[in-house]
């Protein structure tokens, strides 16, 4: 069998034009499928930037919240009630909302403001310039140096801006694990200052961040929050809720599915047709092999090997190309929203196996049908 597979390999790769066409088709399809799903995963990851960056174990919110950006203010008693629940180590408020800042040149820029608990500063970012204590200084804000940083004219410590007619001063520059999705710079300040500076409805707590005493307390806390009429989610559950919102509520998921299917169809068409042509061109030779004494399963093995070899090589090249493109993009744009994750690779792999399977199925049918007698008859 080893020799037959080597024979199949040589028949395939020595036909350089066809083999190249097959590889290009599969590589391109894999590249598109992986890239599209990676891009979407990147978008989903960035959509949960605040959840990831703050890092709280549990989040308490209004039951109507669909995603981190659509927070609904909760009354102060929710915070008090959560703090008094058994199993809660501590609970702090978080403000998360949008605002417009007026820059020194007179232009306005939309920003995301995160208000951290005044006492603990829980969820504070890692500073690359300045001291965290300075956030308590008058009008103190910390700006995140991500891809959107330049939109605030690359502020440095001491830079000033106006927020709802309040003076703001940059007291620190921070980095975060994941930058936001919506193209707006992020400012951190204290919870008290955030609700003071930004016009708000009656209730101001966007989220209550909870640290359970132990993982076993999580379910109990969820139940108690539920009885209170609110929703408590773990960090991962909240990320999933965010992802589900963008996948199912925005049409993004459907678009990605359609684009992935189109890539699949393109790959299937190009590879399927080329592989079929390859089989047709070699049909008489396969017939000759059959006449000489090759069993049907031997011929099937050869064709499956050729399809599998092409598919796996194309898969490797496609994933490699995708990785290179994403890496290059990230060199230029640090917060470029694309990430290759195992499920993306798995989806591409499954689809490429289907492409190889369907392409070889058509070829196998033709080869099994050919009669050695046809070779004699010419």
């Amino acid at each position, binding site marked *: 069998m080893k*020799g037959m597979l080597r024979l199949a390999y040589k028949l395939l790769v020595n036909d350089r034009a066809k083999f190249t066409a097959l590889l290009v088709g599969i590589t391109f399809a894999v590249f598109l499928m992986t890239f599209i799903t990676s891009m979407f995963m990147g978008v989903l990851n960035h959509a949960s930037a605040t959840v990831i960056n703050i890092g709280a174990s549990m989040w308490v919110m209004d039951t109507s919240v669909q995603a981190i950006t659509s927070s609904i203010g909760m009354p102060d008693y929710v915070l008090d009630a959560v703090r008094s629940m058994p199993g809660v180590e501590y609970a702090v408020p978080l403000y998360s909302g949008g605002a417009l800042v007026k820059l020194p040149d007179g232009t306005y820029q939309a920003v995301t403001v995160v208000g951290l608990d005044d006492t603990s500063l829980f969820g504070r970012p890692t500073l690359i310039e300045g001291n965290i204590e300075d956030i308590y200084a008058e009008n103190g804000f910390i700006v995140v140096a991500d891809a959107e940083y330049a939109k605030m004219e690359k502020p440095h410590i001491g830079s000033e801006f106006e927020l709802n007619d309040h003076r703001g001063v940059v007291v620190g520059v921070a980095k975060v694990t994941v930058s936001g999705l919506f193209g707006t710079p992020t400012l951190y300040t204290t919870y008290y200052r955030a609700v003071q500076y930004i016009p708000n409805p009656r209730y101001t707590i966007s989220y209550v961040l909870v640290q359970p005493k132990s993982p076993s307390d999580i379910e109990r806390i969820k139940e108690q929050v539920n009885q209170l009429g609110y929703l408590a989610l773990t960090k991962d559950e909240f990320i999933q809720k965010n992802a589900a919102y963008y996948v199912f509520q925005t049409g993004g998921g459907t678009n990605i599915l359609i684009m992935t299917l189109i890539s699949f169809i393109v790959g299937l068409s190009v590879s399927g047709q080329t592989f079929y042509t390859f089989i047709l061109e070699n049909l*008489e030779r396969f*017939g000759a092999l*059959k006449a000489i*004494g*090759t069993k049907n399963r031997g011929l099937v093995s050869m064709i499956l090997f050729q399809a599998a070899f092409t598919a796996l090589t194309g898969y490797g090249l496609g994933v490699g190309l995708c990785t290179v493109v994403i890496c290059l993009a990230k060199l230029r744009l640090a917060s470029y929203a694309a990430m290759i994750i195992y499920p993306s690779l798995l989806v591409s792999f499954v689809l490429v196996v289907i492409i190889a399977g369907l392409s070889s199925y058509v070829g196998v049918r033709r080869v099994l049908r050919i009669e050695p007698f046809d*070779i*004699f*008859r010419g």
Partner: protein
Amino acid sequence: MPAVAIKASGLEKWFGEGEAKTIALRDVSVETEFGEMVYIVGPSGSGKTTLLSVLSGILKPNSGAVSVEGVDIWNLNADQLADFRLHKIGFVFQDFHLFPRLNTAENVAIPLILRKKDWNESIQQATKFLDIVGLKERADLPPMKLSGGEQQRVAIARAMVGQPDILIMDEPTASLDGDTGHTIVKFVHDNILTGNRCILVVTHDSRIYEFATRILKMEDGRLM
């Protein structure tokens, strides 16, 4: 080894049914012995190729029996029949059917590779047979770089590399000019035909009749 190489009796073969029915073989019985180079000749459509296919285990007759070296080949299942062809019969096809993407030595080595022999050993053995047919120097070239006569010799080397007892040649001179065809068949007669081998040749080229041990004439599906 029994003296009788192939024994066929009462062979009937037809294609299609009803008005489209075409009878290719009508009650054909034939016996060949080792050491013979038997020609099957006759006009186009007389059933030569059908007979050759039935005798070599490629086309099943509608009735009759074929025994090769005492084995009733049409009682074998598909896999056994494939194995039988691989080990006992060498084929030289009219259009050669060489693989253009393999070099000459690899083409010749195919029957050995199909017998699961080591690749390098198969190539070595193939090169020896290329030497026998005078093409050792061409071992690394693709068949398309060879002349028609050389390709025919590669096809013969491929048929012979497994040292089969029966060699089947279908119109061996059809794709060659007169002199080359004559030279090739003479080569087969002088070098390949031995007392342990039987060669069946389908041809309508009278210029090579001189090499035949026996000539069987066919007409309208019957042996005359």
